[in-house]
């Protein structure tokens, strides 16, 4: 087995595992850059996964029948819409709903930590409990059991037009999930927003020195609300993508620690969108190693446990060794009280 074959099996798997972490870590960047700690990323992913699965299960049927309607009985002037495969849009619709609901759900954290001046760590922990409680309560309520059925319309891998035909690199990078490409593109977009736009400057400034921002006429509370809600949207997206590419159903164990890994990726990436993406890709890479190891001659005889703990050990070593210290945004964790010094 040549090195290229090995890379061709590892790299797609790495990107595949990394995508949900990238989304969620980007959400964390928004929230923490605005000065609000977000331990609740885990809960936001839970909410996203839950909403995505439920809306996918609920909408798959109706959207499918829309296709049939357009094919058979739609009035002539609408028939061109029949080209759209509404049934196949189901997962996309599901993640959009998940984004919206999770952003609204994150308002709980925003209200508590910005308006009520709650301890942000406590509020984030509560968010995790609340997401799990609400989602499992509703699953029990709606489906009468502890977990949902498997979705019938998940995301599938698809070759990216033309690019997948490039020799060697094509199969490595361009035959995965659409959502993975979106994750990587979004990381660059978020970098642009945070470092190159007035909005990003304001967001960072309320996280570094809210009093100075306030003096300059920036509405600190409003920026922080936006930061937290964006983290809700992105966390929800991460959870939704995890649910519709990896888990396929929702139960108490669907999201177990991915949110914390995303948090780690964000800190590892020094609160920088591209750094967070790099860290998430690294976690994905390490995770893929333990999954595909059985097919790689060099790793075949290594006991599984070493490969399982490798990503975590490597992260610790990297942090202690050559990444150096990372400083959080200065005003992180402290509520801004007008008029106080």
């Amino acid at each position, binding site marked *: 087995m040549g090195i290229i074959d090995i890379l061709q099996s590892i790299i797609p798997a790495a990107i595949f595992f990394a995508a949900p972490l990238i989304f969620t870590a980007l959400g964390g960047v928004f929230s923490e850059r605005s000065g609000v700690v977000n331990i609740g990323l885990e809960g936001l992913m839970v909410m996203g996964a839950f909403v995505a699965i439920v809306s996918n299960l609920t909408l798959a049927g109706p959207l499918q029948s829309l296709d049939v309607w357009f094919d058979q009985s739609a009035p002539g002037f609408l028939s061109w819409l029949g080209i759209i495969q509404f049934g196949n849009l189901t997962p996309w619709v599901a993640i959009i709903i998940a984004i919206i609901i999770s952003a609204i759900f994150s308002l709980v954290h925003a209200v508590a930590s910005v308006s009520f001046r709650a301890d942000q760590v*406590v509020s984030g922990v509560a968010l995790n409990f609340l997401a799990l*409680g609400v989602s*499992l*309560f509703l699953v029990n*309520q709606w489906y009468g059991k502890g977990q949902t059925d498997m979705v019938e319309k998940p995301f599938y891998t698809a070759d990216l037009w033309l690019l997948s035909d490039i020799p060697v690199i094509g199969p490595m990078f361009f035959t995965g999930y659409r959502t993975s490409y979106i994750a990587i593109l979004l990381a660059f977009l978020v970098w642009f927003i945070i470092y190159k736009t007035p909005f990003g400057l304001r967001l960072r400034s309320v996280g570094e020195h809210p009093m100075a921002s306030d003096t300059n006429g920036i509405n600190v509370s409003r920026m922080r609300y936006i930061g937290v809600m964006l983290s809700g949207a992105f966390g929800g997206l991460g959870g939704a993508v995890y649910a519709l590419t990896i888990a396929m159903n929702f139960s108490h164990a669907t999201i177990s620690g991915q949110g914390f890994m995303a*948090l*780690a990726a964000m800190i590892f990436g020094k609160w920088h969108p591209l750094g967070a993406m790099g860290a998430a890709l690294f976690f994905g890479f390490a995770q893929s190693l333990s999954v595909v190891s059985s097919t790689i001659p060099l790793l075949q005889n290594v006991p599984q*446990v070493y490969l399982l703990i490798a990503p975590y050990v490597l*992260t610790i070593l990297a942090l202690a060794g050559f990444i150096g*210290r990372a400083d959080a945004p200065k005003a992180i964790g402290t509520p801004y009280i007008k008029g106080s010094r």
Partner: protein
Amino acid sequence: MFASRFYNIVIPVISVILGLIAGAIIMLLFGYNPISGYAALWNGAFGDLYFTGETIVKVTPYILSGVAVAFAFRTGLFNIGVEGQVFVGWLAAVWVGVALDLPMILHLPLAILAAAVAGGLWGFVPGFLKAKFRVHEVIVSIMMNYIALYTCNAIIRSVITDNEDKTENVAESASLASEWLTQLTFSRLHYGFLIALIGAFLMWFILEKTTKGYELRSVGFNQNASKYAGMNVDRNIVLSFVISGAFAGVAGAMQGLGTFQFMSVNSGFTNIGFDGIAVALLGGNTALGSVLGAFLFGTLKVGALNMPSAGVPKELVDIVVALIIFFVASSYIIRWFLQRSKKEGK
């Protein structure tokens, strides 16, 4: 004005009441009877001796994991790695309990000590890296959780047993189980409860009654001031993490030597550590508060298992717990209401 001590007691109580009311409203919205729901919860936790016993069994590790989180919090550290420290403590205790053959007076303390040492070592890593390299303790602790999970599984599978999914039961001389408690309640109630209370007492004693504890709290309040006063901040950070980890390790020992008597391969986390965060926060990061918080938490969790008998999904309790934590966190707003109502009363 109210004294702050008064608030420290009143706010959790109000939060719990508000949380329970919110739970009742949710039950009403979904067409359940909140009175029979809560009655089922109460019966599920204290309905007879068996349930009471199981509740205390659940409370025992919560006290210690809550104490572990609270102890670190008091030094200004967030130990989110209690979960992993519980794992290694559990494993160490069971390992000593299975492998050695000693009289009880030595065996049992040795097993518990092994758990404390293992948990302490696991806590040492994030503490040391924080002190030495300023690495964020949260991220290292999270990583250590996963390392603990997978390493413990591997040790159970290939070192302690021969490809089994769980260890043998610990020797009787290392067991916390008690015949008469079992006969009294028919539950898995064991003596670990007393050890948990001793743990909470130790936390209070170390923090409030020793010089070292004063230093630890001082570092938690203000690192620069502590440094200026001649304290070794780095060493205190490490020490705090080690002690916190030791408490967490003993929480694992309660599971290994008391509740289960063995350790099995886990596919995921037990949540004892993560729930410990909630317990500590509920208890305002004090020893007594953690004990009370653990009681509330354990009661709700065990009682919840009986709620389906009133038709209510048991997950309702998770919502209630989350809301209680939110209310505790938002103490500012409760304080504001209290103060306003007092002013108007005058």
